[in-house]
């Protein structure tokens, strides 16, 4: 007796397709937009008069030259020398390599030391004891340091962003340290948390370690 062959069981194919779907959903990187946040200063017509006198110990000068060499005022560490940073070493060799200090990726170490000033050295920024009200943070010695960033006209945007990235990295490291010490959590965990208490803590830490970068364009 000729029997009809049984149909292939397809009930599991739906499961398989669902598995594939979830696999794609989880692995596909939905290209999220991201970037470095900055607040621009307010515009005022009489720019010259806005210049606030700041003690020289509180300023760290950073310059990006036309040749994309980043110069950091080394007066605080060396004797009136500019430290040079670049990603392309040949640029330095063609000029003056005596002050070559490393790749741009090392600038954050300098910015970190500048803002931290752990031994209260007289040539690094002073600190002001401030009461931070957010989250009952209490008294904290807030640094008065400001980084002054100057860009020459033919510097490229790429180098400029790299410098910004390094400065952010220094600040984030400092905030992270404080956050771990005070709350036992990393700063990024606090920032991502939706808890109101954590949001207050984020504000407190931001007030304790402010990001002060002043920019000016020069020739």
């Amino acid at each position, binding site marked *: 007796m000729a029997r009809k062959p049984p149909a292939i069981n397809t009930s599991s194919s739906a499961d398989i397709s669902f598995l594939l779907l979830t696999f794609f959903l989880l692995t596909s990187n939905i290209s999220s937009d991201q970037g*470095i946040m900055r607040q621009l200063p307010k515009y005022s017509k009489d720019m010259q008069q806005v210049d606030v006198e700041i003690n020289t110990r509180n300023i760290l000068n950073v310059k990006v030259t036309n040749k994309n060499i980043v110069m950091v005022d080394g007066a605080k560490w060396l004797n009136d020398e500019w430290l040079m940073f670049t990603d392309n070493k040949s640029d330095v060799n063609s000029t003056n390599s005596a002050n070559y200090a490393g790749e741009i990726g090392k600038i954050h170490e300098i910015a970190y030391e500048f803002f931290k000033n752990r031994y209260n050295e007289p040539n690094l920024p002073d600190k002001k004891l401030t009461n931070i009200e957010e989250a009952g943070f209490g008294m904290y010695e807030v640094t008065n340091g400001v980084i002054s960033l100057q860009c020459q006209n033919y510097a490229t945007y790429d180098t400029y962003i790299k410098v910004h990235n390094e400065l952010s990295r220094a600040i984030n490291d400092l905030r992270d340290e404080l956050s771990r010490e005070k709350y036992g959590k990393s700063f990024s965990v606090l920032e991502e948390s939706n808890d109101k208490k954590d949001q207050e803590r984020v504000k407190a830490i931001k007030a304790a370690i402010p990001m002060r970068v002043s920019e000016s364009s020069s020739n």
Partner: protein
Amino acid sequence: MARFKRSGKKETPELNTGSMSDIIFMFLFFFMVITTIREGEAKVKFTPPTATEYQKLDKKNSYTIYMGEPLIEGSAMLDNSVSIQFNDKLAPETTDEGLERSVDEFVKSSREASKSKDQDPDKITYYLKIDNKTRMTAVNQLKLAMRKRNALKIQYATNKDVKKGK
């Protein structure tokens, strides 16, 4: 043994196509997810610089400005042959005043759009997608125009730094 004797002609079973639609739907959904992400088209060439200390963009209340080499010939260009794109069109003028006018227009339209989406127009983030080879003169020109129009909260578009990671 008759029981195990094969019947001479055996039809091959039909391939069940019931799951085909599932798979097609799956692809459909997949592509829908991918394509809805991009809003607006860039009319300039642009490769963002890389960084490690980036933050996610708040998409609900942000408006994008592009800057880079224009893809269409004959566009007005700033220093070092870059153009600025607001919304869907390139800035027609490149003088400081002309740029300010374009920025003004863009800021106004963004604020209106923000209001209609129940967002705070004073908290708009301007997302700057700038090509990494752009000279700082052009960037500073745009930034100055934005400052004059009180558009102060900005975010520089960056890519993840693959080498260093995070």
